[in-house]
């Protein structure tokens, strides 16, 4: 029981992320592709959670699923004039395929070569709680500063994009 449940979850998430990636490449509709990308990112976040890398899972959801995917969708939807423009040709790009294969091969090689180094993972990984405590005590000042940076950027962005009756 204790073993089968995580393994089953892993297989579901792994298939979801791989299947999502394939579906993203296969679809001809750019908007659909963006949604498949979102699905892949969420599935990857689930795998991180299974590995008890809670913080990484959180960042994956917040940054990749939350910000990057939404930004992609915004860009696609703002640049499309008509609904039909979203459907694109599907040319087979041999160059891109070669680069992707090389990249995959390189990663597999590294994993195979450096397996001993990867095995030395600490027994327990500090959870989100410990991280949060650090962030709001030791690193409170940079954290608060970052929020002011965002506020300043927000004011600037509103100013640039705002209309005359701002």
């Amino acid at each position, binding site marked *: 029981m204790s073993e089968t449940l995580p393994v089953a979850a892993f297989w579901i998430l792994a298939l979801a992320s791989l299947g999502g990636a394939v579906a993203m490449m296969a679809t001809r509709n750019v908007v659909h592709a963006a949604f498949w990308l979102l699905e892949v990112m969420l599935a990857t976040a689930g795998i991180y959670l299974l590995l008890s890398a809670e913080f990484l899972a959180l960042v994956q959801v917040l940054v990749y699923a939350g910000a990057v995917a939404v930004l992609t969708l915004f860009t696609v939807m703002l640049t499309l004039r008509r609904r039909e423009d979203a459907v694109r040709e599907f040319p087979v790009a041999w160059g891109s395929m070669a680069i992707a294969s090389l990249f995959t091969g390189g990663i597999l090689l590294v994993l195979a070569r450096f397996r001993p180094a990867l095995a030395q993972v600490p027994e327990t990984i500090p959870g989100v709680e410990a991280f949060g405590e650090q962030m709001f005590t*030791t*690193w*409170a*000042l*940079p954290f608060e*500063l*970052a929020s*002011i*940076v965002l*506020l*300043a*950027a927000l*004011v*600037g962005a509103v*100013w*640039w994009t705002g209309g005359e009756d*701002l």
Partner: protein
Amino acid sequence: MADVWRLIPEFLVLGGALVALFAERARSDSRVSAGIAAAFAAAAAVAAAVIGPGGDLFGGQLSLDHIAVFARVAIGALATAWLLWVWGRGVTGERCAEAAALALFSVAGGMLMASARDLIVLYVSLELSTIPAYVLMGYRRDDARGLEGALKYFLLSMLTSLVMLYGLSFVFGISGSTSYGQISLGAAGPLGQVAFVLVLVGLFAKLSAAPFHYWTPDAYAGAQAGAVAYVSTVPKIAGVVALVRLVGAMAPNVAGASGVLVVAAVFSMVLGNLAAFPQSDVRRMMAYSGVAHTGYILLATGAGTAGGPAAVFYAVAYAVPSMAVMMLAEEEGPALDDLGGLASRRPAVAWASLAWLLSLVGIPPVVGFFGKLYLFTSAVRAGFIWPVLVAVAMSVVSAGYYFRLIRSAFLGQRKGAPVVERRTSAATAFVLITVIVLALGVLASPVLAFLGMRF
């Protein structure tokens, strides 16, 4: 945490930014925002002076030493002068509530950057002080050229910021800590040198030092001179303090560290001064002369911690008059010949501009002379004889183009000059700047002693 009250200047500035943003709801004129912002900036400068030097804050992430106090007061005072001027003149064709608020955000970032002694705090406050600057550079939204300059500035500045962040990650990896007190790059050998240079790239670009100065003239010439008056001065003071502190923490034990700084200094001085000479646009001329002045400052930075006080003092000695020259360029027009006949039209401003320009050349008794004197003294003590000779020669060259401005103002003629309205607040800004230029000249040695210079 009990010492958080020492950050009252920063809180005042941030509160002022929020008040300025919404002040025009009460009164229909948006210029009143700049006036309110000026009051907050002045209060912050006074508060910083009254609070004075103190210990470390947040476990050593901030250090309110003498240099930090001087930089905070200078940043607050200069921001006050700029906001007073905006109060009087406004921003052509646009409201100025956002400009005032963004300037105050940038002031808060600058004040924190001047006291940062931690890599993360440094980086975040650096961004806080420059992000508003991007917007100010392209503040007129209908002006395509201004937006182009702002975009160029934004892209280059972001790129170099990321290179710097990459370098900072190396520094953290080598030292195992982000605190300045625990940085030691010496043991890492070539990796330490790489990290040092990568970190410098970001700061060099922000200060527009020689190999990374290309964005400056285009960005300045595209923007309004009034906005450049702020962007080219206040963040620079904080940048120099950050550079002095970072070099002090990183440079020991890194082979060739001061060599990198001195080579960049010589390139900046020669390139900046020679390129400023043929310019006919005051903004471009000041952009190149800014590159040259950064070169002088780098010379003292290369001298190590002993040169720190002189570098910070000179950053202020450069920023104060150069802000005034930019404001004048906004009022009279950006071309060199636009200053023609200034002495007969506005004699008081013409004579004040004489003081500013003499300070930029470095002629006694104004502040620029003493700044250069102590700068070159600390460089000579560190053994940089030839670079200092180059610097002195280049100062003479710089007199050539600054005197062209003076000649235009006193001997030139101009037909159809614009009638510049009299505004009390704008005049107050000019008076404030001129008083600082003259008073810092008289008080140069006590101030430098306060900063920790050994005579």
